[in-house]
């Protein structure tokens, strides 16, 4: 699946730089760039973006809320100065799916865009686990399972709760991404959740990130 990316930065020059950087990347297509939400709207209507890269330093959480409302189909990836839980948590609560630090590599950025375009959480695993624990504290208790998980599903849920993307899970288990996606569909049905974030929160509440059996 190719990530169809919109770029949001207040500077036209930076927008042009992002476009140039991402132009040669496989599985990423930049469909437009804008300096504010208003300029993005017509681009989004024309191109159906699956991901949005936000390179905006001020008021990120409020911006994430506005973007989530105006572009609900696009996974939001924010550039942040560093991976700090204090900065990342408000973004996730506002609807962002991931963050990439200024120190990250280009392959990291590309993997992030691909991940959020699929609705996956994209954070370094250590931060992701902490963020999920923090988010889970503020949520209502999850109901228990009515149908037991298979060994493989439990393994995948554990990795999901550690903040791994589908590709990372597939690489850890050495199976295809399509196989992981199929397991996740079954998992979502058994857990009664609609998204991987909900599934990850369910897993955190049931202690999955603390269970190291799922790591190979």
């Amino acid at each position, binding site marked *: *699946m190719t990530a169809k990316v919109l770029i949001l930065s207040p500077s036209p020059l930076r927008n042009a730089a992002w476009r140039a950087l991402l132009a040669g990347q496989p599985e990423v297509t930049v469909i437009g760039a804008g300096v504010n939400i208003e300029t993005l709207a017509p681009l989004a209507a024309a191109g159906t973006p699956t991901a949005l890269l936000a390179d905006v330093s001020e008021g990120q959480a409020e911006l994430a809320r506005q973007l989530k409302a105006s572009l609900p189909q696009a996974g939001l990836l924010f550039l942040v100065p560093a991976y700090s839980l204090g900065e990342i948590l408000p973004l996730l609560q506002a609807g962002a799916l991931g963050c990439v630090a200024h120190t990250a590599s280009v392959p990291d950025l590309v993997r992030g865009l691909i991940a959020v375009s699929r609705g996956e959480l994209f954070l370094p695993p250590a931060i992701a686990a902490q963020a999920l624990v923090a988010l889970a504290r503020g949520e209502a208790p999850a109901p228990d399972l009515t149908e037991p998980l298979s060994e493989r599903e439990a393994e995948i849920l554990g990795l999901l709760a550690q903040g791994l993307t589908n590709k990372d899970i597939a690489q850890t288990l050495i199976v295809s991404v399509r196989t992981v996606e199929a397991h996740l569909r079954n998992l979502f049905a058994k857990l009664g959740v609609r998204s991987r974030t909900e599934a990850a929160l369910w897993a955190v509440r049931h202690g999955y990130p603390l269970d190291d059996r799922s790591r190979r």
Partner: protein
Amino acid sequence: MSSTTIAVLGTLADFHREPIPYNLGALVQLVRRIRPDLLCLDLTPEQWRARAFADLPPEYREALLPLADQTDIVVVPIAGDCPPPEPAAPGWRGRVIRWAWSGLATLHRSAPGPAGANQGWRHEAANWLYTLIGWLAGPDLRRDWKNHIDHLTRQVLEAARRDPGCRILVAVNVRYCHHIRHALHGQPDVRLVDFSEL
């Protein structure tokens, strides 16, 4: 249970860096187009976990591993801990081995593309020269090659059976691919195809 499709692609190590049709760019383009689910590479699980790629051939280090990083392609490290040594022999056998290498170099450089290096008379001639090199280098090397090929094949089959129905590309040095294809042929639950059909 659905059958798993496997293709074996021979690679050319340092020759890929030369200005030949089957260069690193052509290799990346080919694998990107095939877009396998799993990409079996001749590196050890330890090298993969530690991302210790410095000793790997350029087609892995500079082409296939970066491509896998940026796509959904999952890497399967299939090598054992004891890679076979490069063939060598003293005296006249050593001289014939060097002659055979130069013949292989000519064949690889003149291949018009990935298909040329992987099938047809050029591939058969190269395979014959590798067999000759194996005989000249002695029984120890032939045993090491066989053990290595057996290990690679077992790991490919294990990957195939772990994830039935997936599409697997095995990208290994062209010296091994003929033998791996032969070993995979006729295995239950796997379908061996040409890389252009994967």
